[in-house]
């Protein structure tokens, strides 16, 4: 695969950009995500996560078993602000 190939479809981040982050000294998925924005888009790394893990493992000569995914945070799907603002609890219903 060529370096100018897109890896993160959402943020349109290439393999070259991910490699640059690794050269910079970053070693974890979370760090690479922050540096490159790969996995910070609408899908939150659902599509590219595994591809980035592969590149990170290869470039740092680590086995894949040493590369953990990014810190998992809510929401696991996009949730509209209006929906989050409308939190129905028992108190409201009573």
């Amino acid at each position: 695969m060529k370096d100018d190939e897109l890896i993160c479809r959402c943020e349109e981040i290439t393999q070259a950009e991910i490699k640059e982050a690794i050269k910079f000294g970053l070693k974890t998925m979370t760090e690479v995500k922050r540096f490159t924005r790969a996995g910070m888009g609408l899908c939150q790394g659902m599509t590219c996560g595994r591809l980035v893990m592969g590149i990170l493992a290869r470039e740092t000569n680590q086995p894949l078993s040493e590369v953990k995914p990014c810190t998992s945070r809510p929401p696991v799907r996009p949730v509209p602000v209006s929906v989050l603002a409308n939190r129905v609890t028992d108190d409201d219903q009573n």
Partner: protein
Amino acid sequence: MKAGNQRAEVVKTIHSTEVVVIGAGAVGCSIAYWLAKRGKDVALVDRGGPGAGTSMATSGLVWSSYKEPYTYMELNLRSSLLWPKMVEELGEDVELRQDRGGVKLCLTEEDYINLEALAERQRRSPLFKGRMLSPQEVFELQPGVSRQIVGALWSPHDGDANPIKWVFALVRGCKRLGVKIMRDAEVTGFDLDESNRVKGVFTSRGRIETEYAVNAGGAWAGRLAEMVGVTLGLYASRGQMLVSEPAPIVCPTPMSILRQVPDGHFHMGVTYEGEGFEASSTLEAAEQLAKNAIKMVPLARNLSVIRHFAGLRPMPRDGLPFLGPIPHVPGYYVAVSHSGNTLSAIHGKIISDLIVDGHTDVPIADYDPLRFDERGKGEGHL
């Protein structure tokens, strides 16, 4: 008392330098950068990677107007003025926005009255140029805000930046100046000589020989201070934030609490919570932040939240920085504040002044790191 001394013989010295800066967040990176620029040999150590802590979870404001007392506002303002110079020096785009000033919205009459009174207090400083805006003036600056607002406090000196890009730009700057960056090195103790002077720092990777140690540990700085017997009067407070999907820009002006960043995402902040190192997200915060965002920018209701994160902010008990030397531990300096992003620039200058020149022209008397320490006051401590 110094557990470190006993370990001195067994722990291998892995590096020797003039200054060890602990904590590779915005504050630590800036200090390392300034020291290196002024000719010091510096090692920047972090228990994780660069910016792994609070610097990545900050709202990214470069702000001064509402910080009190006015002398503290002045410190922030001076730092804001240093930012563009540092950015130019670093030669990188960190999305610094200072050309439109910054606004803090008043959603109620009460907000307006309070902010107006605050602005009046800040005018004791000749540097303060903030003023209250009418709703119409706000809409011109910030078309996306609610038509229900009562006004805003605006200051030409307020702005924002991308805190992640800022840290990485500083790290690159440090690297160019030869700073040794040591990641995954957690500080476990300090090596002090007979006169209590710093001669080394113990880390999980080994001992680093040094003349100076700078505690820029942010929310975790209290622990690093306890290692030399000093209590800072600092606690960690969780702050949570929501990030929306990107949308076309309707809020081009930096704004406190909720801001639209240049690539279109809304950063919807931010909670101020109690004491503790718990940094997970909560359901309550999601609701509160979303409600607040809609009040400020009603169209945000239609956007989706793609990330909800929490960070730990260092909270000094009186809100003011801990900045300066610990006289009874020669060579040990502290640089911790609540406003780490804004103040990172001037913290770098101040600490480098103190270490290189022995004094600084910035007034720091109010920020004595020992002001809460019962044991550490004065010479009697030893």
